[in-house]
């Protein structure tokens, strides 16, 4: 049995499930809102939620797409009993998570969120060109119009920040000095790009797509500011072998066997920007005709 963790509205997971169905592979699709209780039946770990149930030892492959395994924790009135029982429950949950991660897997729940600052440090040590970056609380020492700012979080969307409106933090160029200081923010040298590259990595293989976002004012700084009337041109792209080897090395350091990486191509240099272990790759599959959904289904 294969376990798939995803958000409910994740179309990518559905595409992979189509392939699994055609391959006659059985799977359980676990949603982000499911809460599991750990039970023992006939000396075997048995997990049960509102929608699903399975024996832990029946699982042979796991795809951590998004969401994750959540557990129901019992609370106890007596404080010291509660602390003790919290630990008991923690170790049972830890056993389940680690056992699942030890199976054949595509990504891990515990490695789904990575620190962007550490990733940049590791990328530099791996030998990637990384645009110079720093943190600051004011614009005093920031070269105006030559620096971008972006969030250090994985998620850049703020749900319902206004009534019926979500907020999104795109990468933006710092165009003016700020009078007041602000919370620690991330700044990076702005690189004039020839084009952007999004690479989907899985188990040592790289599938790259060039995104020609530089000629459109709307998508110039952040291609995710999609121009729906005149979309960017996206084509399959082959990275040089040494860059692909560096990607493989970096992913191994980060203990990731799948993820999406962003690069900027500028003259003859490839600038590393970031990795998203659970990033979207359906667009890379569609635009470039890569068999990415099938790759995952084959591996599981």
């Amino acid at each position: 049995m294969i376990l798939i963790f995803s958000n409910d509205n994740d179309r990518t997971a559905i595409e992979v499930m189509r392939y699994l169905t055609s391959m006659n592979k059985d799977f359980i699709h676990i949603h982000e809102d499911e809460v599991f209780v750990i039970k023992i039946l006939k000396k075997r770990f048995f997990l049960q939620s509102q929608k699903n149930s399975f024996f832990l030892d029946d699982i042979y492959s796991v795809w951590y797409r998004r969401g994750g395994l959540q557990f129901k924790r019992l609370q106890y009135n007596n404080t010291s009993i509660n602390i003790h029982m919290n630990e008991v429950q923690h170790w049972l949950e830890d056993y389940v998570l680690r056992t699942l991660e030890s199976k054949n897997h595509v990504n891990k729940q515990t490695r789904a969120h990575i620190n962007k600052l550490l990733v940049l440090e590791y990328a530099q040590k791996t030998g990637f060109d990384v645009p110079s970056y720093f943190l600051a609380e004011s614009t005093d020492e920031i070269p105006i119009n030559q620096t971008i700012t972006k969030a250090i979080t994985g998620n850049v969307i703020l749900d319902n920040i206004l009534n019926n409106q979500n907020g999104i933090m795109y990468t933006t160029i710092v165009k003016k000095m700020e009078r007041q200081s602000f919370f620690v923010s991330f700044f990076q040298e702005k690189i004039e790009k020839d084009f952007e590259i999004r690479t989907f990595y899985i188990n040592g293989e790289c599938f790259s797509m060039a995104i020609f976002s530089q000629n459109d004012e709307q998508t110039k700084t952040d291609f995710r500011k999609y121009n729906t009337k005149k979309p960017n041109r996206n084509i399959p792209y082959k990275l040089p072998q040494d860059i692909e080897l560096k990607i493989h090395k970096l992913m191994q350091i980060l203990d990731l066997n799948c993820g999406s990486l962003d690069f900027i191509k500028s003259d003859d240099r490839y600038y590393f920007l970031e990795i998203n272990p659970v990033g979207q790759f359906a667009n890379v599959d569609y635009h470039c005709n890569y068999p990415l959904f099938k790759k995952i289904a084959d591996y599981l």
Partner: protein
Amino acid sequence: MKIKVKEKNKLPLTFKHIETFADQKLKKPNDVVYVLTCEKYQTNFYIREKPVKSLNRLL
């Protein structure tokens, strides 16, 4: 549309550049049903339209 956020504590500079977009989930429901509940794929977000790409491949 850019928004102004008022908080007692300081926020990163990225908050000055937040842009908004309408939340699909919060939109008033209309008569067109785009997603379906699908038992086979254990989801209630099965997209109703057939993907264009698959059609191209078939042709």
